[in-house]
């Protein structure tokens, strides 16, 4: 909510802006404080003042109350910073997508500013700047829920350019909500890469002392510099502690918790590696660093749907959608099932040229359409099964396969980037 028209006009006539020192006499009591931004959930008649004690309070102001500006906000020039040292240090490209890598709180106004330039970064995370020459670029400034396939494409181009220009690693701070999708998309689009591409997120924002942003970034940088790995991966906390991290293959990782630091999990495989402070333990073989040039294939067939089956899903509701789409990934129940009604619809869609891929909403475990009648019917209907591939990864891969392969079924069923496997270990 914004200010009421009355309060807006009071502030306008005073030309009062955030940061100004105001005196408000309301209900006979005087309040002096710095005008703060109006909170989205604040009452429209409330002014938020920061008192000398540092506390913010909301004061209801009516038209008859006396409001005056005692002092205008001082303009502050951002401090001049030194260029960080470059010589003798490997260049690590940091491509910003919208999350704040590091930030500063302005205790006067309460605003939080991101640190965007190399100079700001070197000043705010000096321990990282000591290890490498951090070369930041801001590609987008969007929340990760607003990411679209075209952003993956742009990102893949930017990453390729950095790698081909000799960057020792590319680190991508990314909002956590859709980080798994982006990681999968980059995995398929970039193909073979000479150096690591690491996506890093934080579950606690960087404006708080307990943020996991810095420890995740620092771990990513160390992993990229010290380990012989050239994969697209996601690095996040592996538990609630600040000294334990997991490095996941970009195609196997999923956000499994809405708020915990260790929300990201590798599904159906152990993570590529675990880090405990500086100790790294690998769980799987991976590509080594090389001098290969990246030739990204960024084309995507964007007319693909990702649908979760649920009891009560009626073919009539989805028939137009599914038949007219070029590709559909279904997240079925159990081993990969949908009801009889939907089997019929899928059969029609495949007949009409739609590629239909079946995955499981269990997330853990593989689909198997040979066990029950429904499964066998789905096979006969022509669905493609993709072992234990995650629904989200299958969605991304189908878009990519349809734009880059003449044989979509074959591409979908062949592991390319660790996205699927035949074996699942019995972890007891």
């Amino acid at each position: 909510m914004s200010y009421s028209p009355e309060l807006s006009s009071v502030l306008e006539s005073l030309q009062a802006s955030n940061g100004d020192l105001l005196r408000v006499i309301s209900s006979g009591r005087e309040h002096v404080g710095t005008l703060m931004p109006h909170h989205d959930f604040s009452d429209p008649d409330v002014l938020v003042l920061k008192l000398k004690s540092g506390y913010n309070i909301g004061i209801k102001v009516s038209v008859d109350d006396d409001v005056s500006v005692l002092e205008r906000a001082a303009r502050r020039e951002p401090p001049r910073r030194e260029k960080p040292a470059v010589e003798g240090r490997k260049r690590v490209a940091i491509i910003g997508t919208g999350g704040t890598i590091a930030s500063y709180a302005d205790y006067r106004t309460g605003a939080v500013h991101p640190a965007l330039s190399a100079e700001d970064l070197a000043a705010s995370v000096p321990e990282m700047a000591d290890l490498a020459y951090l070369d930041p670029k801001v590609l987008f400034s969007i929340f990760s829920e607003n990411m679209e396939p075209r952003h993956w494409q742009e990102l893949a181009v930017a990453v390729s350019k950095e790698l081909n220009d000799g960057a020792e690693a590319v680190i991508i701070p990314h909002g956590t909500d859709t980080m798994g999708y982006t990681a999968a998309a980059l995995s398929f689009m970039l193909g073979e890469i000479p150096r690591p591409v690491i996506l890093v997120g934080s579950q606690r924002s960087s404006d708080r002392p307990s943020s996991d942003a810095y420890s995740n970034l620092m771990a990513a940088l160390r992993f990229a510099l010290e380990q012989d790995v050239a994969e697209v991966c996601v690095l996040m906390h592996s538990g609630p502690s600040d000294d334990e991290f997991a490095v996941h293959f970009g195609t196997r990782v999923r956000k499994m918790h809405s708020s915990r630091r260790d929300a990201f999990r590798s599904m159906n495989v152990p993570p590529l590696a675990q880090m405990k402070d500086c100790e790294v333990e690998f769980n799987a073989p991976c590509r080594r660093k090389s001098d290969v040039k990246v030739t990204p294939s960024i084309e995507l067939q964007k007319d693909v749907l990702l649908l979760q089956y649920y009891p009560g899903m009626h073919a009539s509701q989805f028939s137009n959608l599914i038949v007219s789409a070029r590709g559909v990934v279904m997240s079925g129940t159990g081993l990969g099932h949908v009801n009889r009604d939907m089997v019929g619809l899928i059969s029609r869609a495949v007949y009409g040229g739609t590629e239909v891929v079946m995955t499981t909403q269990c997330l853990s475990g593989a689909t198997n359409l040979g066990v029950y009648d429904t499964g066998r019917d789905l096979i006969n209907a022509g669905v493609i099964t993709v072992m234990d591939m995650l629904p989200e990864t299958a969605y991304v891969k189908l878009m990519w396969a349809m734009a880059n392969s003449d044989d979509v079924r074959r591409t979908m069923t062949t592991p390319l980037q660790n996205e699927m496997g035949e074996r699942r270990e019995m972890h007891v």
Partner: protein
Amino acid sequence: MSEHELTCGIEIHQQLDTTKLFCSCRSGLVESDEGTFLRRLRPTASEMGEMDRAALLESQKGMTFRYQAPQGVSCLVDADEEPPHVADEEATDTVLTFATMMDARIVDEIHFMRKLVIDGSNTAGFQRSALIAMDGRLEMNGKTVGIQSICLEEDAARKVDAGDGEITYRLDRLGIPLIEIATGPDMHSPEDVKEVALRIGTLLRATKRVKRGIGSIREDLNISIPQGARIEIKGVQELRLLPLYVENEVKRQRMLLRVRSMLQERGALPVATEPVDVTESLKGSGSKVIRSALKSGGRAFAVRLPGFAGVLNGEDGALRLGAELAGRARTRGVKGIFHSDELPGHGITEDEVSSLRQSLSLEDGDAFAICAADEDKAVAALRMAAERANEALQGVPEETRDPLPDGGTRYSRPLPGAARMYPETDVPPVTVTQERLRLIRDNLPELPDETIRRLVVEYGVNEQQASQIVRGGNDAAFERIARTLELPAAAATVFANTFPEIEREGLDVNAVPDDDVLRLFQMLSEGRFAKEALPSLLREMASGKAAEDAVSSLGLSSLNEDEAEAIVRKLVQERADFVKEKGMAAAGPLMGPLMAEMRGKVDGKAASELLQKAIKELLT
């Protein structure tokens, strides 16, 4: 400005008896060290450029924090793994109620802030706090004490262990709502301070929404004297010690002012803060401290304190600047320092002192301080001590001090600057509606004085007892027992006399839940034990036993009338000669040994009747 000998303000932190402030965890302390994890905190830069590299490196070298997350009393919110929920309404209402009682100006909209605290006591690295009301007042004995601010905030995690580079906290206490009340600097005697604290405590308890027992209320004192400085004594838990802390602080400041004028008369100049290596002079020292420090590779250092002889420890302990120097030095991780006013001594000989004085080129009237430890630590510690010595030339330095159980205090840290606060964007602001305030005004709790009058009238207890019961915050429990069990006299004695007695013994009897006390009285009314046993039973319960267990552990529930009679008969038989000689008059002298055997198991009056009966039997 003020002509008072002493000026003092208090800040009271009282835990509220609701769920936690930003989650629905039960708020209670537990003995459990389950579920630990490890965190580091990083100071967020304030504005661009304000975080210097050195400070950051310090914090990185610095502490790791281990947290114990016991189930039931901590959750993802406390572990900083989930955003805070909206502030608890009951806690907010309690603060609004108290603000109304203080006639304070309540804000129209409550905004929670993040107050930066990076000592690990808050998993987030900040404490959430909101200013709810300002400018209230408390009328007391014709005087007015200003209530500057009333805040609602979350309690910090409990420190359970501190080791080298790592501090362990338990999350049970984190997030318990606290009401924070800051008075104006309106108190001018140690007794005033206690009275005001007691009065505020009683008014808080009148809301019936505050926690009881040791640690549930903590007071910070702000004390200054003319020409002295503002000293904050943080976290006093025992109310009865308040006047002692104030008195001792006044003494300490006066002592420091005397030291200042003595140093000025002597023309003492600021000392050089750079320590010099004196390991050679102490190589063969018999001092345990020095020997063990040197043995483990440390060195001995000294700072010269020209003109400081006699003020470090002089006039039979009346001058104690040395203790101040040592307190400051200890913040750098050393066990302590030695200063020349206490030497020779501590295993350091006259010869060693002479050699030290010589190598430091000291003259009469000059002092020195030494420290033996790991080189970096010893140097840092002595620099701190020397800086503190220089502050003595100015008088009293502003600082925060920790209270000690004996009524003294110890240096803790410099006074914090203005708190670094920024908005807690995860918690939405709360508009305080007129309707909510009206409901609160219409349902204000009974004031303590009214409760006292009512207890006197309704239950026939005397006024002094009633006042004790109310001051102790036990009026609700008293009324339940008095009304449901019709035991007003026994209950009054227990709450007005027994409780304070047990408390003085250092047992936290106020932490015993009211329901448990009620259960105890129920068993009393069922004749399971005699009222003489109440004090010992309550002592057991204050140490953590449930009422039933306390009764059976004292063996009080087993004695029926037959058993009692048997004991009495046996006693009378044993002393048959005496009884025959004295006749019925033997009853008096025999009551002593009888009650010693049966105390608590049988009511005194019943025992006396049994005794009379047994004597009669023997005589006939």
